[in-house]
């Protein structure tokens, strides 16, 4: 998946790719101890299209959300259905337009378009449903995960996306050395990350965003490395004794 992180206060956008393996479960938002919210995404693989430099591409086939407050609830979203497990279980088909409101937690589906999960009124996630009627061999139904409202997530929030929510970043130019041109680095979390300018299409391709791209699986941009964000199962909140 292509990751895009907007830093509105810094007025810039950063992007990176995560080239994981099919079946890997990535921790996207981890705030279990504070707001009680955890979001994970499971990857599936697909062959790269002809002419691509890659061997395979990976996409999110499932997004899971664990909510701890006021009551424990599990939400599992796939391109076909949404399963909401609280005191009881409701299964909602993604082709219908339906909303379920349980007080502090609500799930709203716009048929064949998107799923919005709202927690406590100040946290919301939008999951876009990318469905293909006649898929080519390299196309798979998959999901896009967007953070709608993060006001309710704490400053201790982590995860591939969550760790950046309250960070400020800046750009700096490294002077040329010898024959090399001057290069730009992103200053984030007391680290300098080499970046290049790119653009990304988001919201099902309806919007293009210019961003500063960090290479190599976001090395130095994210805390630790890729394998630190692999979760052991879909509803893993990272709380291991």
């Amino acid at each position, binding site marked *: 998946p292509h990751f*895009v992180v907007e830093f509105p206060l810094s007025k810039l956008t950063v992007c990176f790719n995560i080239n994981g393996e099919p079946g890997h479960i990535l921790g996207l938002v981890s705030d279990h101890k504070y707001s009680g919210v955890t979001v994970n995404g499971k990857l599936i693989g697909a062959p790269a299209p002809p002419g691509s430099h890659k061997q395979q591409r990976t996409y999110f086939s499932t997004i899971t959300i664990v909510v701890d407050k006021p009551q424990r609830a599990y939400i599992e979203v796939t391109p076909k259905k949404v399963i909401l497990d609280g*005191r009881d279980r409701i299964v909602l088909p993604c082709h219908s337009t*339906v909303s379920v409101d349980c007080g502090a937690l609500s799930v709203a589906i716009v048929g064949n378009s998107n799923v919005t999960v709202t927690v406590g009124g100040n946290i919301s996630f939008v999951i876009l449903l990318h469905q293909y009627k006649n898929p080519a061999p390299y196309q798979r139904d998959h999901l896009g995960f967007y953070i709608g409202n993060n006001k309710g997530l704490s400053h201790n929030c982590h995860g591939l996306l969550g760790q950046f929510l309250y960070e400020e970043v800046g750009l700096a130019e490294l002077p040329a050395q010898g024959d090399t041109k001057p290069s730009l680095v992103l200053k984030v979390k007391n680290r300098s990350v080499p970046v290049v300018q790119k653009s990304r299409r988001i919201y099902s391709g309806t919007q293009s965003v210019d961003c500063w791209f960090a290479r190599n699986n976001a090395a130095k941009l994210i805390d630790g490395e890729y394998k630190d964000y692999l979760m052991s199962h879909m509803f893993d909140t990272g709380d291991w004794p």
Partner: protein
Amino acid sequence: RVPRQVKTIITKETKPHIQELSIKTTIISRYAFTAVYCSLLNRYPAASEGVFQFQIPANAYISNFTMIIGGRVYQSEVKPKEKRVKQERGKSGTKEPGDASPEPEVEVFRMAAKIPGRNRAVFLLTYEELLQRRLGRYEHVTSLRPMQLVSRLSLDVTIVDHSPITDLEVLPLRNGKSNAAANTATAPKPPNIPAKPELPITTVIKNEKNVCKITFSPNIIQQAKITTSGILGDFVIRYDVQRDMGIGDIQVLNGHFVHYFAPKDLPAVPKNVVFVIDTSASMLGTKIRQTKDALFTILRDLRPGDNFNFISFSNKIKVWQPNRLVPVTPLNIRDAKKFIYMLAPTGGTNIDGAIRTGSSLLRDYLLGPDSSPNSVSLIIFLTDGRPTVGEIQSVAILGNTRSAVQEKFCIFTIGIGNDVDYRLLERMALENCGMMRRINEEADASAMLKGFYNEIGTPLLSDIRINYTENSVQYVTQNLFTNYFNGSEIVVAGKLTNESAESLHVQVTASNNDKSIILETDVPLRNRQIDTEKHVKLATSAMATGVRALGTDATQKLGVALGSVAEDFVERVWGFLSIKEGLRSRLRSQTSKDREGHTQQATNLSMTYHFLTPLTNIAVEKPEVLTDGTMAPAPTITPGAGEATSPANDLPGDTDDREPQTPDRDLNSQALSQSNTIGKVVRRPTKKFITFSKTSADGD
């Protein structure tokens, strides 16, 4: 070779015998059209009376009857019933004659006519029925009781549905009394009872995704192997259709729409249930034993989140747990079993006292701290007789019940046997958002009671409101429902005010436990009309294929009978539902003006759709046969001359049939049927695209 016994039976017969009995049913989206073709042959020189008798489901309405005798066609006419003439009985306050009469178990259509010597008579009967979903299945029953062996006997059923057909079952022929009554409780599938032997070669099932064809055509030998009496029994088909947790199936045809709503994958809502059981002396014996058996089974099916209590009544009223409902725990279940075990029939029947006690118990519980606001509350009331102790006037009992219930819960009533005042029970249920069921005297009350409990034992949604775009629809049937139970279906139909509108916005809101659910969709009207037309074409061509096999005469007549009505089936569904609703409202009316209004409305609808209902009669001219056995010449029709008519073959009783869904309590003070006022719907674009933060992880 015909066995000698069969030959003897045929030669002994002197009355006209049935040459052919062909029954053709087409079920398009749960609406069943049936045409019955019966030809009788009088082989003797003298005229003889031929009798055509056919049992139809109590929920169905006859739409046409025609006789062809001696080459002449006698077409029936549907006419409004005359107002019942009040008979003076002396005492005031006594019930109107017929009010206390038992509900008919089945509807039997019978026509006797003189058939000229060496001549044939053809009887053609059509009827229509909207199949009700109960215990997760639609059931279609055809009575095969020609009362004699028939040379050509065939039954063809074609099912066509918009959704794929699932779980199709053809049951063994079912015999025993009254299997076709609409209000009869349904027994759940018995697990280990071996099926009656079936004749496999005579039942053919062809099953494709959206079309199923079932054919049953036993020859005379095969019929004789089942029985020589000609009473084969009921041919029962059950099926369901594929469904999901969506807004349901909405079909549009020629300016009308019908909406089938039966979501699945919902968790059960906890319930608060009070069982009120008759223990009067007449329950002694089989009835109380079977009732106890059912209650023991029901206790096992109560869920951990449920709360319950028992009340038994005769002269006295006994409450198992005074002043409260108890949660479902192993201890409480065990104690409840003891209470049930100790029930001993004696004394009279104090229905009024029992209902008021049960209602007060439940009402007080709901006001208390222990009750959950998200649960469903109901009273299940069982009796085998009429009120004999305390208040015995139905009107007073119903008034007391309404005051006691205060629209806070629903009452479901069950009557066992022939002594019950079913009109009272039906009104009690209808006025309090419930349903009534009848268990026949000879039936297995235990299975029936358990079956009825299964129908209402798993509430999934409450406070259901189905709304359509304001000003786009009119004359919508009931669209507010108190509860939706697992295994049932809600059906709403109406007229479109503007057929050329692009789409119709539909919104369903409901509650499930602590969740409020909203489902919405925009129905593209033109596409949906084309879709529905396709299914009608599929149905009519499937009809034509089956009918061609029958032979020229039956082909023509059955095909004509069915084809024309199938093309407008959505409108006929609307008409059918509207009449049922009108009859319900009529029964519930509190004033004679109200009652008269509903009567007129339902009568007009019956006339429009040519339905034989409790408010109409069917009249048909009787053929005149001369003493030499020939037909009298056709009379010269002069203006104003009265026609000789046979006695109106009206259906017994003046009753309402049970409805496919639980009627709502009057949320408005006015009746809900035929209302032009539809809940306002705020149109939301279905493809609303939300933009906000760009922080995301999305596909390549």
